[in-house]
């Protein structure tokens, strides 16, 4: 079985990624008439996408019940998935 990183690795990676997109890239956009729009777009995009991913991962952090599988699926997955 794979060693799962739990929550720490994904959250660090995604936070850094969207943090760069929303916090660092706006400074690097060249000056021009569209700078304001592009900056707004970058920040909004970073916030939206990060929040969406965060909700998805937090919802699966502590599942209250597990998936119910048909016996054929179980038979297949038992040997083919770790």
């Amino acid at each position, binding site marked *: *079985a*794979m060693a*799962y*990183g*739990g*929550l720490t*690795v*994904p959250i660090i990676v995604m936070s850094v990624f969207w943090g760069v997109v929303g916090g660092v890239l706006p400074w690097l956009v060249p000056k021009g*008439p*569209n*700078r*304001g*729009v592009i*900056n*707004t*777009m970058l920040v*909004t*995009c970073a916030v*939206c*996408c990060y*929040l*969406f*991913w965060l*909700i*998805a*991962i*937090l*919802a*699966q*952090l*502590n*599942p*209250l*019940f*597990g*998936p*119910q*599988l*048909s*016996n054929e*699926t*179980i*038979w297949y*997955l*038992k*040997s083919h*998935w*770790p």
Partner: protein
Amino acid sequence: RQLNPKVSAFQRRFVGEVRRCEEMEKTFTFLQQELRGAGRALGPCPDNPRAPLAREALRVQEQSEQLAQELREVSCNRASLRGRLRELRQYLHVLREGQRFTSLSAPLGSPVRPRALSEREPILDPSLHQHLDRKITFVAGVIHPWRVSAFERLLWRACRGYLVASFVEMPEPMEDPATGESITWVIFLISYWGEQIGQKIRKISDCFHCHVYPYPESEASRADTMSGLHSQIQDLSVVSWAPQGGRGGHAGTPQSLTRAGHPQVLEESEQYLAQVLDKVVLALPTWRVQVQKMKAIYLVLNQCSFDVTEKCLIAEVWCPVRDLTQVQDALRQGSYKSGSSVECFVQRIPTSESPPTLIRTNKFTAGFQSIVDAYGVASYQEVNPAPYAIITFPFIFAIMFGDVGHGLLMFLFALWMVLYENSPSLRQASNEIWLTFFEGRYLILLMGAFSIYTGFIYNECFSKATVIFPSAWSVAAMANHSSWRWGSQPPCDPPRSLPALTPPHSAHSSAYLATHPSLTLDPNVTGVFQGPYPFGIDPIWSLATNHLNFLNSFKMKMSVVLGIVHMGFGVLLGVFNHVHFQQRHRLVLELLPEMVFLLALFGYLVFLIFYKWVKFSAANSLVAPSILIHFIDMFLFTSNADNLPLYRGQVPVQTVLVVLALASVPVLLLGTPLYLCCRRRAPRPGRPAVRLGSRRGGSAGGTQRGLTAGAVPVQPVAAGEQEPLLEGQEAGNSVNATKEDVESGGHSPDAEHLDFAEIFMHQAIHTIEYCLGCVSNTASYLRLWALSLAHAQLSEVLWTMVMRNGFVRLSYAGGVVLVPVFAAFAVLTVAILLVMEGLSAFLHALRLHWVEFQNKFYVGAGYKLCPFAFAPDAWE
């Protein structure tokens, strides 16, 4: 701005010019019709001609009228020539055919039957030719073939056997002058005796619109007439008709007229016609554009008024402040180019009218601005939600549409449109639906891109999950460590219950599996659940039969969280408005209570959701509290014994929050009105008469905080002051400003009480709307869940019931069957999932923006600035 409201349309100064332009346009239409009749197309105008000066306009008018005149003459002459030619030829035929009958008087025994049109017996027997002792006169002519039988019958009834008629078809068809179609005429030859009968016959043939030609009685005169006709026809062919050159190579060659030959004169006239048409084709496009520009300019000039001294024109226009220097430059250039001695200039005058709104966009942002404007144009200097909508709109669309495959298709489609956006065939299509899609190509591009992202998070690609990272749920661990073996007690009914623990030895778990058609993985067993899937939803859920249980809970909570965040953001955008319009009191008296209300109730809900996700796991899943029941109990101040608290001290915290929220309502309701009332009670005489009740939409004299897309970033754009063209008039009010205009800014003190009532009423409505709206709008965001569920289910249905059937057969025949199955799958995917679901999600995302998001801060009561411009695609 229309400065002559009192003058009727006919008395305006430039009406004559406008009329002249319209006459010219009529001439142009006539010319164009002639062109079309000759089968030529009018090309587009090659360059952008400037509007002509007055004398140029005269020249254009003269030339166009001359050309039209020439065209008319040419067509007329051509028509008359053709008519003449036709008549001559008909006459010739009549004579020729008639010969056959009259020369047949001798053999009576074998009458040559004339070629009748129908199979029946001719009514008038040609064998009556034997009665030749009387003097016979002839009437000959041509008649339309449809009228032959009626003509015959009438002749017989009228003349009762005193005449002989024969009909024969003309050997070649000819044009009917009236309808222009080619008809095979029928030649008739009537021989009669007696004067009265002759008159009757002529009257009848007149009735039937026959062309009657004189038929000479003797052979010799007939031969003479025929040769005369021949020469006349030849003459027509050699007559030099064209007044100007262009005879070309056909000059003067006398060709004998054959049956199939086309006379030369007509060719020459056709050539001349072609020349005139060429001239027209060259000149017409430019003229059209010029005249259209002139007309537009004169229409605008009609809106100006003259100065008292009748020496200059005054116009009042709206102009963006930033472009003021440009306007001044243009005016200077204009007066220099037209060579006038007086310069025109620009002066600002104050006004109480609300200026129009100008938001500068480029081709990318125009699409997003238009969907915001479709709800309502931003009030003057109000915050513009469009820059945020560039991202939030496609994002909310994508939440409802999330599927990698469909998103990719949409993205590629939009990419194609964007890459080929300059191709004229795409741009100038006449299909309106296509143009709508084309205008929104950047919108669709972003929607597709975000759909790919949300598709990865939902882990759906054409309804199939992709296993990018290995799944966190281990079936093997469940099978090995748990009780899926013989000897265990049968599992109980509640879905979350544990099957009994393991017996010491392992047996064939496959036998166990055979008797249990479905089993549930239990996260409590070690090794079964290894942690949250790092990016998105775990792929095992797509194989599970109870995946909707999990997904529904996830998507509902997600919708609520995102909705509350979106609405909170909307409320926060109001900060910009309050700060810009110098209404900082509203920050404390309105924004603060609104935020408190929203966060205390719904922000707390978000907190509960996140808290439950983090703190409660499968270990205590049996006793996990229900957030919904807690939320309801919070409002009702009750508690439910079965529902355990989420954390210690929950009840007092909730009580405090509810009290806080309820306390913010009266602040919201009464704060601003009381404040304004207090402020007005302190009298300030020197204050300019500006309305204080400026919260009502579209305040006059306010300034716009336009976050204009594509322009200078985040700076206020004061778009609009009023400037007239004035000379010698003091800087004062508008030329025909009425008394009401100037005084509408102020109001008398008696009106104050009324105003207070109005303000209070307005605020009460706002409070109720806001508080109730919070609840209902939060629930409204659940449509994000509903539509994404519908999309997922539709695509799953399409897969299981259509595409999967193509994989069932494993033989080569199955491969052939796969092709039509895939075709059906593809068509249904595009039609139902992409188009229908796409439009549906688009609509709901739009509604969420327009209603739930924008009613937190947006007024949208402005009107757009419509500048006077010559757009190149406005002319055909």
